[in-house]
């Protein structure tokens, strides 16, 4: 939840300070500077930033969707996912194509996958939520 996350962000410096003096904190969540934090942040970055080939393929997919060329759009998006599988937008667009094709179950499955990679992107959260309503 964004609110919780904001609170945690605010709490974290205080928490680290408290840990440093050996005190307890009521929410003892830590992201110390170690390989796990780095790995999680790298993972977040991969989900949020599309590389140039992925942007091009996503754009080609959107153009194909506009032309009602859904199989072609799926091909572009699957190629994009192979290049950058953790890009949450590619999964969202794929869900969108399946919704247009009337494949609601597959649409929902792709939204779930998109959400699993969606980090700090309210626009994508909203888009996924709106699409999920359509796919139900």
């Amino acid at each position, binding site marked *: 939840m964004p609110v919780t996350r904001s609170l945690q962000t605010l709490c974290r410096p205080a928490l680290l300070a408290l840990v440093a003096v050996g005190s307890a904190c009521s*929410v003892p969540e830590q992201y110390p500077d170690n390989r796990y934090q780095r790995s999680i942040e790298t993972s977040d970055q991969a989900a949020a930033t599309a*590389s*140039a*080939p992925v942007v091009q393929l996503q754009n080609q997919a959107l153009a194909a969707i506009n032309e009602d060329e859904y*199989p072609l759009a799926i091909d572009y998006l699957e*190629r994009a996912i192979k*290049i950058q*599988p953790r890009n949450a937008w590619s999964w969202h667009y794929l869900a969108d194509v399946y919704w247009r094709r009337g494949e609601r179950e597959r649409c929902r499955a792709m939204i779930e996958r998109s959400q699993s990679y969606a980090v700090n992107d309210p626009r994508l959260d909203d888009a996924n939520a709106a699409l999920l309503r359509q796919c139900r």
Partner: protein
Amino acid sequence: MPRKPARRKPARKPASKARGSARAAGKGRYFAAAGFLSLLLLAIYLGYLNHIIDSRFEGGAWALPSRVYARALELYPGLRLSREQLAYELELSSYLRVEREPLPGEYRLLGASLELNSRAFDFVDQAQAPRLLQVFFANERVVALSDSRNGEDLAVFRLPPLILGSYFPQSGEDRLLLAENEVPDELVATLIAVEDRAFYEHSGVSPLAVLRALWVNLKAGRAVQGGSTLTQQLAKNLFLTPEKSLLRKINEAFMALLLEMRFSKQAIITAYINEVFLLQQNRIAIHGFARASRMLFNRGVDRLEANQLALLVGMVKGPSRYNPMTKPEAALERRNLVLKIMRQQGLLDDAGYERERAAPLGVPQKLPGVNPFPAYLDMVKHQLRAGYSGSDLSRRGLRVFTAFDPLLQRNLELGLGRGLSRFEQPELQSAVVIADYLNGDIQALIGDRVTDYPGFNRALMAQRPIGSLIKPLLLYGLLEEELTLASVVSDQPIRIRQSNGDIWEPRNYDRELHGNMTLYEAFIHSYNLPFIALGVNDDGLQRLAQNLDRIKLLKHEVVYPSMLLGTTAMSAYEVAQMYQVIANNGYFTPLTTIRSVTDQDNRALSRIPLESHKLYDQARMLQVQRAMVGVSEQGTARYLAERFGERSLAGKTGTTDDLRDSWFAGFSERLLAVVWLGRDDNAPIGLTGSSGALRVWADIMELQDFSAFKLNRDDSLAWLYIDSKNGGISKQGCANSVLLPIPKDRIPKTRSRCQ
């Protein structure tokens, strides 16, 4: 049926003139009837021949092998790919390395870059024209990609895929078909000049040539010369046996006449060019100029040099006698004779003739292997069986597009070779599956330690107990209850009364008892007793059964306690499927070799879409993944931390009773690899998962430039330093302290002494 009068005997005595004319009339009727009968028989005979022609010549005359394609390599800036790797991929795709500007199907090295001219290719979604492009590299990566014609930078380019193998017809014939408009004029002209100069004049049979051959054969007392036209040769090749008999010659002549009556000269010469047998490659017969040209010169018939064309045309007379690899001198002599004829017929000028005559044969010493990746092809065939019959695969010329990655396969084969050489056990067998667990692509596969041996495919068929590879699913089941990685469990003796009354006393692999510890600690050291103690109850066993059933790997209706020790047998492919869902945060994506299938005209027949099904809870699976990272850092696979340092990996070792099976399944950022070692006779190999399969796994991964495994974020988990012995909250730097994800609603209440 003929009427009876035709068989009536003449009257016994001569009679009058009138009776004589009656007899003459009877004789006339006799001849008429006989003539009619002959015509009828001839008509039936011709109708029969015509039917044979119809069935083979028109619409699907040839059984075409299905081609299996590798994945199309996507080139883009940032791609982890060296110039050497790209050159290797191009060589495998039969690209020619040149020093000038490349034509389609060629490449050249330019400083630190590589310039290639891609071939035209019909992808499933669109046709792609040839394109000249330059690929720039730095630090083993593609850093830029541009169109050589206009300098335009490209974001991404899809390279046409290589053919990794074929499914051949039972006849064992391999060919590439040319359409009428694809046959080069030079080829037709040379063929006619050498084989049948009157081709455009005759109607299928050349009486003069037949008489000449007859005379020569009579003089020799046996059949030494044929007077066949190209059309007759085609009729013989297509419809008849190669025996030299009068009946066969008659059939051949009539069929040639029929072919000429029904089809154009261009259609006949095209059929001939597609049909003629030219090479033998082990058990596969190479037919047609197009395939032979690819095999010998690595290029299409439209780009053959005159000397190459002459060699192929010369081979028509005797593919075995003039085989350029086994009989180079005879082949060279024959080629030069054809070049001479080409000059005589005005197809070459004098200078051209001298130049071409001086050219070497230019063929490889050995033809490339037919199917160098048999285990992968076998897996493709197995997965195709759901939708296609054996006949479809071997006759219809299907195009099967797969996820096969030749670069990864090369690393797998090299790494496996190195790995197996550690053990000096000639009987030791292996199976390896490598997949991209995020999209389900099976990218490389090995089913035998001799990687190109097309025998028993162990990756798919060998069912072996998986030992402790079952533990990640057991751990998942325990996390579904109130346990966390910080929960304290007990490693102490257990006695279980089985349904038949026997007592079962399971043990740890090291036969030791380790007292109390966290679930995390028990997992990373793969201690059996805590997992059995926690899972042996009805709920625990049912949970394991349910979790296996979700991915269709529950193989027994009755669930029994020893399943907790991994007595269930699976293939390496099935283990890979189980670990795919673990590595992919609980999202199930079916592992597949196939992405799409088209017919020979590129009409899509089937397509395997990207699937994703959430079958397990992500937060729990993240905890399992963290424990598996612990295995590679501090547990039974800590060898990986020693070998790969900071590059974090996740995995699990597996060993079975008496050291009969050695397993390791592990994953990086995208790659999942499962390695099994064992013997076909199930004899002990003296290797644990850690001392055997893990080492081979590392040898394979070392060659692959992989990225560290990354844990996903999940806001329901808190990352806490935990004392791995007592499960209390600890802090960084304390003894036994490990950073673990703990559900926020199950944070331990106790604190370690250090804290």
